[in-house]
């Protein structure tokens, strides 16, 4: 197992390098000139030319790549052309917010989606199954921003139970930054008032973000359960008098979630990008809006760094997915 993980980790580096090359080429193919964005609205062509020289944007692309790679090797992600802050610092500030949101959304999707999926599988082709199938389609087909606005209208405006937007109320002082994860920092600082407030701010965005993943998880779990129920061992286990609940939730489920776990890994990659809309509507200070801003202003350093980061998180999650696969099904571990 350890060897397996080490091998996968070793393979991440070339993957990330590949990712970097692809992204670098892609970004440089875009005609948007970062020097123009940097110079600002009222700049003259001379100012722009000067910036282009200053940042080496006039050099050949391979040279720019070499310089960039050298910097990345020393964990220097460069400086954002427009916030003038080190990209690493911006990301360290924002990533925890996105991860916190993503993680909560994913947890919601899994804890609701898996049971619903199992139920749909067990009730195959009966009304509960049809309802759950329609419900899961709703999750896919409803535009996140529409759903988000409806949640805001109901829970913030009409009922007043949950805050409309943001991470923390204006009146509540931020806890000292330790991990960057607001909920954790609140706990570390022993600030239960801030924790409760931060948790309340998290509810609506997390519910919105969980929607797409929820649908995916329900459908894949349902398919997995249907598949597993065809196996002889289910009959054998019934014949041996396994308790029904344990049979389904332990012995059948573990055989059914391989594809679901794969999907959870894939979702994690998508959730960071998918968070863009949610972060925008709820003014969540995460990495999504930062990325969009960078794309809209042509900030190459940020685009590269975010790509690298998403790639790393993604690779990590997928190693985890493979490990979980191995834990779920020992046969897979032996083949690798």
């Amino acid at each position, binding site marked *: 197992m350890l060897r397996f993980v080490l091998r996968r980790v070793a393979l991440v580096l070339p993957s990330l390098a590949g990712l970097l090359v692809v992204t670098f080429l892609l970004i440089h193919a875009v005609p948007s000139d970062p020097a123009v964005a*940097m*110079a600002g609205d009222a700049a003259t062509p001379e100012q722009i030319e000067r910036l282009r020289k200053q940042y080496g944007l006039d050099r050949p692309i391979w040279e720019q790549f070499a310089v960039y790679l050298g910097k990345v090797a020393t964990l220097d992600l460069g400086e954002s052309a427009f916030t003038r802050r080190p990209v690493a610092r911006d990301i360290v500030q924002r990533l925890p917010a996105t991860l916190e949101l993503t993680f909560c959304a994913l947890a919601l999707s899994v804890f609701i989606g898996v049971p619903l999926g199992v139920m749909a599988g067990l009730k195959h082709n009966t009304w509960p199954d049809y309802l759950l199938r329609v419900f899961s389609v709703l999750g896919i087909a409803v535009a996140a921003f529409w759903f988000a606005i409806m949640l805001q209208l109901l829970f913030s405006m009409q009922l007043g139970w949950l805050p409309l937007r943001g991470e923390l109320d204006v009146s509540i002082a931020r806890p000292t930054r330790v991990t960057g994860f607001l909920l954790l920092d609140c706990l570390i600082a022993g600030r239960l008032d801030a924790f409760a407030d931060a948790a309340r701010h998290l509810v609506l965005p997390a519910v919105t973000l969980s929607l797409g993943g929820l649908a995916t998880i329900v459908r894949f779990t349902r398919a997995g359960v249907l598949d597993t129920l065809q196996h002889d061992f289910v009959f054998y286990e019934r014949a041996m008098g396994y308790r029904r609940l344990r049979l389904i939730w332990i012995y059948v489920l573990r055989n059914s979630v391989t594809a679901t776990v794969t999907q959870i890994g894939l979702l994690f990659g998508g959730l960071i990008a998918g968070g863009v809309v949610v972060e925008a509507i709820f003014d969540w200070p995460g990495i999504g809006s930062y990325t969009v801003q960078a794309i809209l202003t042509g900030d190459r350093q940020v685009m590269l760094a975010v790509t690298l980061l998403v790639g790393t998180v993604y690779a990590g999650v997928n190693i985890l997915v493979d490990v979980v696969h191995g834990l779920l099904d020992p046969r897979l571990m032996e083949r690798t």
Partner: protein
Amino acid sequence: MSRHGRLGRRELGGLAIGAFAAGALRSAQAADATTFVSGFGLPINLDPHQIFDVPMQAVMLNAYDNLYRYQGDPPKIVPWLAESHTVSADGLTWEFKLRSGVKFHDGSPLTADDVVYSFRRMLALALAPAGAFLKILKPEGVTAPEPLVVRFKLETSYAPFFAAIPSISIVNPRQIKANEKDGDWAKSWLASNGAGSGSYRIVPAGYRPLEYLDMEIFDGHFLGWSDNPKPVRKIACRPTKESSTRLLALLDGSLDCTDTNLPADQVAQINASKIAYVQKDVVMRTFIIRMNNTKPPFDNLNARRCFAHAFNYMGFITDILGGYATRDPYPMPDTLWGIPKDAKGYDYDLAKAKEYMAKAVAEGAPMKRPFELHVQSENEQSVQGAQLFQSDLAQIGINLKVVGNIWSNLTTAAAKPETTPDMWVHWVSTYFVDPENWVGQMYDSQFHGTWKASAYYKNPEVDALLRKARALTKQEERAPLYEEAIRKIMADSPDIWIYNSMQLQGLNKRIKGRRFCTVGQGAEMRWVTLAS
């Protein structure tokens, strides 16, 4: 603070339990009478020498001071850190006499040396705010002959110099130098910190770029607070990204003001609420459809006139913008001096458009080719205007394609005539209150390559008039030159000038004492009081 129309709150409230319920009650009382939650957009960083745009004004005017400042509506340039100024007859030497006793946020006194340092820093960074100064001012041209006198020696006479003086904030060199790295003028540091003397001080811990910013009152500001005994003590900038969230937050009382781009369609809804209203202010911000005069058929006068007659100006303003804009047929705001009031603009008249089209076709202009009109897709209004135009052009047989694009790509593309689209849409805001901000930089051919001059219009007579006007210092002498230039430009119809904006901003009714000025768009907070 009371909340509006919450039906059945009491019945349903019983269901909310635990921390959530407790929190809900608390947040309803949260916004106190000294904290102002601002919806103004944030600049991409906090350094006033790097960024110069509308959101920056909201930071600059509160956290920094400048020598002169625009105040009032219509805007007047008034002394601020400077008490007065003199200018030599040739327009090359300017001297500013500073107030005494001004203190920076760190308590150190503000002197002429600090002003010199600030201008030199601005010139050395050579970013957006330096645009107006780079060609006319060298770093050694700024000096401090006396502790409270600053002298500027210009390379050439440049009338808009004075108009651009308010765009430069005075920073504290002691704080800057302490945070300098490799001679970078501390541009990394100042991007997320403050080093000013303004009415409010930036709280670095309360800043996350483009997300939020906290500012606290500076009790030691040179103007004192006697003119506002109950000022806002904390400005919490919490800009909204989505138009719908912005509306809800305003109606919910958790946002005191929106930004200044409220869509006209939301006006009625806000005015119907008990808690907020929509403030209307005329600003200097023109809306233009650019034509690339180098690409056929736009090199043909009749073709350009045909397009100018095909836009439904009043329909757009009245029906789509709800009347919240004024028709402005000139290439700059009609409230500014230098406008030839007798000049007649283009009106919506498809018959005329057809006539001009026939003429253009007769002259060999390719009117039947498909045209591209690039819009800023994130901006609903530009998209709507383009679609309206497309619909009208289709009626006279012109095939227009609307292409969604983004600002950075458009400005990059506009750097060369070949890459500049057939047509594109943008606004021109007030960077400084002078015709130079509009016609000067838009139609003088020396500015070709900047997005403001992206029509690639070239008329030697206009060039001469604009250059002459730029070199004179007296408004009475300059005005006739601009009037004549504008007449010529309008006759050539290089662009389609649509309207001058009316700014719509949603405000909480508890806001009192707001003072509006088109520069800064009402973001200066030092006179504001929050009624309880």
